[in-house]
């Protein structure tokens, strides 16, 4: 069989209380951005959502609903204003600023959002097992969407290892077990690591990255 190229987007480790203790994003998954020059008036409807300026209506030229304004005329956006402290919506409302170049893309996850998503998964995991029509069900093992698949492995001690991959990617179980091994060897055996706290250990970082790179080169089933 031909070994297909690994398509892993990210890895999350969640402790037994539901807080995020580690995350890793694969370097070869970039969120695409689109730049386009607009004339007045703007044909997109924008709104502020979660301290970001996002598209509410009017998809065109690859710009989708939910995309955030990442920059204007080459100046990067920081939340709902630009780096030079000007409010994005005010800049866009002023006709004198046109024609204007706006960069759109899927908003990047901030660390706070990641922490929130991790605790959300923790409770969804619990509800999933509670709503089971069959007795003695575990929590969510795998969650599938049209763009990614989430694999979750809970250890006996309650730590969850979560891997986000391409929907077509298989053989994730081996990689999940390998991650657990790396966690036990380089986080748990580190005398300076206190349990349930975020993992900040250089050895852990390098070993996890080595596993991911190896999986990338050789395919997941060869780990």
């Amino acid at each position: 069989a031909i070994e297909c190229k690994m398509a892993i987007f990210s890895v999350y480790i969640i402790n037994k209380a539901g807080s995020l203790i580690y995350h890793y994003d694969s370097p070869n998954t970039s969120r695409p951005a689109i730049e386009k020059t607009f004339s007045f008036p703007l044909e997109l409807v924008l709104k502020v959502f979660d301290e970001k300026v996002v598209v509410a209506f009017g998809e065109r030229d690859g710009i989708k609903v939910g995309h955030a304004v990442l920059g204007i005329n080459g100046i990067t956006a920081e939340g709902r204003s630009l780096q030079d402290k000007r409010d994005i919506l005010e800049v866009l409302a002023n006709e004198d600023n046109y024609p204007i170049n706006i960069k759109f893309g899927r908003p990047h996850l901030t660390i706070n959002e990641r922490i929130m998503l991790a605790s959300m998964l923790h409770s969804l995991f619990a509800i999933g097992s509670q709503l089971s029509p069959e007795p003695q069900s575990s929590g969510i093992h795998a969650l599938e969407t049209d763009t990614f698949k989430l694999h979750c492995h809970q250890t006996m001690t309650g730590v969850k290892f979560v891997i986000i991959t391409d929907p077509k990617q298989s053989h994730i179980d081996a990689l999940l077990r390998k991650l657990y091994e790396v966690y036990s060897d380089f986080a748990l055996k580190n005398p300076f690591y206190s349990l349930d706290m975020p993992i900040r250990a250089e050895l852990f970082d390098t070993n996890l990255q080595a596993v991911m790179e190896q999986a990338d080169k050789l395919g997941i089933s060869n780990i």
Partner: protein
Amino acid sequence: MTIFNFYLFDRHGTCLYYSEWNRKKQLTMSKDEEFKLMYGMIFSIKSFASRLSPIDMKEGFQNFTTSKYKLHFFETPSGLKFVMNTDLSVGSMKDVLHQIFSSLYVEYIIKNPLCELDEPITSELFKNKLDEYIRALPQFSSKVVA
């Protein structure tokens, strides 16, 4: 292979219809509570998935599996949510859920002037047709596989 149960929610979160076959575990909570919990879970998973996705989604959340069951999800653009729980050996149920929408819900509820939309379904016709349809599916088998 077997089908456990089926939920139909409208876009406001009201459970329009519930039906079950071969369900072994009954929850301690009331059915009403269960519907709310199920809707809340589906709603959160949708939001969770759309934020986590590295690329733009088209259909979004489709199914999840635990060690004992698989939950299939289908949503129409009008916000109707079809949820079905089956055992793990069942593949994609997207076509089945779409079929329930287009040839049962539209035919026997939307086209029935006596059926109030946005209210739980009481139509005996819909109930019988759905039951008949589900029982005829190849994924439905009441024999319990050991």
